[in-house]
């Protein structure tokens, strides 16, 4: 048995096997056309191999010629399938070049069947037996058909198309680069080999069979290799997909766990305001069961009074979604199933999914926190009040005097009137005048008591628009007799037309009183150049600055900050709460308080209030 008899049927069989395999793939996945095109190409090569074998075994010139002519049919099919394989598999190759190749090849086939023998031969003059690999094969001695150059041209066109496509794939880069190069170069190599051998045979340089199928086998093997590695890749992808699917499921499960166990009530709402997801905390905070919430409008979790406006808010939020807190610094109330309001802090996060946009609302019940804050505020106000009462205790002598004066005037006036009325000639005009004065004095006493009571009673903090200069004058009036008793002179440098400040009148009076008392205390042992206090007010940018300067001994540099701490005092008597309370009050007004020493001795306490 000769090698040719073995190899050619084997090539054909191999091609058919590969073709069948890819056909099966194509049947499973009809949308993928590459396996189909490969199968057609492989079957064409199998046909070519079979016909070549028959030609090599041909016994007459006629038989040889007929085979040679029909060889162009599978050849044409091979060309077309190769061209479109390249286009489909690599997505590359110029379409006009593809059609040029196919068109040229179609002309070749047409010419082939119109020629005497084939597109290659004008006539076959003789049939020789030529030894190949120890075997004898039939080789024709021929007159070459001039149209055979058209066949060569079609081969060149195919090479041009394939090389061009391969370059395009190469330039695209990535994983396809190598495949493009392999398939492209295999086709170019095969075609070049065939063209070169044809040339040598047709020009009479050698007397040998064509062996076309052997060259095309290179292409088929290269293509089969690539398609085979596709299967391998698919398997790998499937495995990766499975892994990532597992991971996805795990991460989804984790997400659900996180949302479910979150310490906040989480409510996911779609763009129409329908609840899509809630967690355990939501059930706890709002008192609904999960199945009572899912699919229902989120408005059911809001108090009735804001349900109307909420749709508008939600519309605006959907139009401009960004993560932010709800309510913009206002208290947000939710509605419990039993109808009571729940104080909430809500933050909103937009979520985009394949199924559309959602809003994830995360809410914390801050009722307890607010209660604690309120308790702390109350405690602070209590302290402020107590320290005010204690301070007024220090001023009690002064205040008693303020009250005593009008009372003394009233008593004198009243007794004078009694005496006048006891006289023989009653001077009614005088008595009338006396009664008028008594009324005035009584009002004055009432005013003192009112001022006192305002300072003593514990009121809600109430912010009014205040003039700092008025405050300073009022406080100085209150302290007048204390200042006299202690021989302290007060001068004021109050800026005219100060911008008004917003504040609690009583608390700010308390600060000024405290600073004035401290200033007096600082000068108990004599001030430098007389006991003098200077009260100043001045606008300073967006704030009003008030200062109280004394001529005492000043404050050690290291204590300038410390004196505002609670229980820090330089006095022999005193809790050391006064300045701490002042700082609390000033800070509560958005201002600042600090101390400095004067160049000429003594200290100054300054504070600012936003205007």
């Amino acid at each position, binding site marked *: 048995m000769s090698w040719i008899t073995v190899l050619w049927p084997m090539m054909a069989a191999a091609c058919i096997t590969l073709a069948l395999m890819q056909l099966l793939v194509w049947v499973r996945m009809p949308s993928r056309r590459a396996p189909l095109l490969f199968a057609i190409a492989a079957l064409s090569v199998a046909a070519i191999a079979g016909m070549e074998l028959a030609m090599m075994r041909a016994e007459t010139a006629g038989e040889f010629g007929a085979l040679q002519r029909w060889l162009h049919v599978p050849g044409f099919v091979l060309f077309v399938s190769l061209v479109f394989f390249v286009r489909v598999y690599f997505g590359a190759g110029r379409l006009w070049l593809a059609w040029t190749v196919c068109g040229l090849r179609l002309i070749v086939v047409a010419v082939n069947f119109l020629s005497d023998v084939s597109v290659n031969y004008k006539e076959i003059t003789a049939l020789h037996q030529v030894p190949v690999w120890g075997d004898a094969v039939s080789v024709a001695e021929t007159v070459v058909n001039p149209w055979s150059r058209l066949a060569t041209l079609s081969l060149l066109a195919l090479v041009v198309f394939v090389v061009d496509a391969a370059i395009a794939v190469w330039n695209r880069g990535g994983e396809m680069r190598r495949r493009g190069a392999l398939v492209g170069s295999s086709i170019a190599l095969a075609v070049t080999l065939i063209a070169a051998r044809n040339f040598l045979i047709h020009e009479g340089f050698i007397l040998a069979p064509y062996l076309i199928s052997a060259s095309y086998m290179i292409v088929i093997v290269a293509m089969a290799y690539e398609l085979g590695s596709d299967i391998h890749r698919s398997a790998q992808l499937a495995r990766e997909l499975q892994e990532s699917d597992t991971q996805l499921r795990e991460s989804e499960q984790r997400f659900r766990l996180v949302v479910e166990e979150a310490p906040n009530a989480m409510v996911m709402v779609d763009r129409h305001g329908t609840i899509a997801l809630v967690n355990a905390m939501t059930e706890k905070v709002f008192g609904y069961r999960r199945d009572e919430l899912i699919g229902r409008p989120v408005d059911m979790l809001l108090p009735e009074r804001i349900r109307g406006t909420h749709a508008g808010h939600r519309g605006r939020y959907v139009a401009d979604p960004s993560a932010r807190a709800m309510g913009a610094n206002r208290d947000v109330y939710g509605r419990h199933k039993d109808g009571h309001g729940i104080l909430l802090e809500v933050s909103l996060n937009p979520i985009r999914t394949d199924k559309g946009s959602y809003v994830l609302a995360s809410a914390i019940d801050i009722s307890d926190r607010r209660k604690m804050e309120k308790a702390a505020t109350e405690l602070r106000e209590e302290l402020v009040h107590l320290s005010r009462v204690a301070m007024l205790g220090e001023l009690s002598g002064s205040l008693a005097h303020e009250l005593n*004066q009008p009372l*003394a005037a009233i*008593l*004198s006036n009243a007794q*004078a009137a009694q005496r006048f009325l006891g006289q023989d000639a009653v001077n009614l005009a005088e008595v009338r005048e006396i009664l008028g004065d008594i009324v005035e004095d009584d009002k004055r006493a009432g005013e003192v008591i009112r001022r006192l009571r305002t300072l003593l009673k514990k009121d809600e903090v109430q912010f009014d628009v205040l003039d700092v200069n008025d405050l300073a004058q009022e406080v100085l009036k209150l302290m007048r007799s204390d200042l*006299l*008793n202690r021989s302290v002179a007060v001068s004021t440098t109050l800026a005219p037309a100060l911008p008004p400040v917003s504040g609690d009148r009583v608390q700010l009076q308390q600060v000024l009183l405290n600073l004035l008392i401290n200033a007096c205390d600082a000068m108990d042992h004599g001030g430098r150049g007389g006991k003098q206090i200077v009260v100043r007010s001045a606008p300073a940018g967006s704030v009003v600055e008030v200062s109280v300067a004394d001529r005492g001994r000043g404050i050690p540099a290291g204590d300038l900050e410390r004196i505002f701490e609670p229980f820090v005092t330089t006095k022999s008597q005193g809790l050391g709460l006064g300045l701490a309370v002042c700082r609390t009050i000033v800070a509560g007004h958005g201002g600042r308080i600090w101390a400095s020493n004067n160049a000429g001795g003594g200290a100054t306490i300054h504070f600012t209030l936003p205007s």
Partner: protein
Amino acid sequence: MSTTVFLVDDDAAVLKGLRRLLASAGLNVIAFESPQDFLEGLDGDAGGCVVLDYSMPGLNGLELQQALAARGSALPVIFLTGKGDIPTSVRAMKDGAVDFLTKPVDGEVLLAAIRAAIKRDRSQRGERAERTDIERRLATLTAREREVLRLVVAGLLNKQIAAELGTVEKTVKVHRARVMEKMRAGSLAELVRLAGKGGLD
């Protein structure tokens, strides 16, 4: 002799009320709003008393007394105060107050205090006037007559005085008669009293 109550209080309303009260009692009142005004407007010879608020700025009771003395005035001062505590009272008395009352003060109490003060002023004033008179009489005596007077007051007899002065009893008698006449003393006992009041040493 006119009697005036000088009223000093820096609180206009209190001043007005007190002035009315005193006026209703028929007292002659002059009111001042500050101690300075009072001192400036004071007539040293004026009689009566001062009613003064003790809780006024810049007031020092002792200095006020000194200022009064410097103006030749010995007016008694009644202090009024808002504070009735012991330290303040003690300080006021040390400062020379004849009385010390707590505001608001009852009219009758104040008037009684004022009347007492005026009476005291009046008697002090009378004593002062008598002493001045005696001193004037003493001033008319010659040196020899003063010596005789001193020895008479010391209880010596005429004979003893003569021996003391180195003269005769008769001369002493003449001097003695002139002293009695100049001093307008009707008896020896009266002469002794006048000499004592006149501060003869």
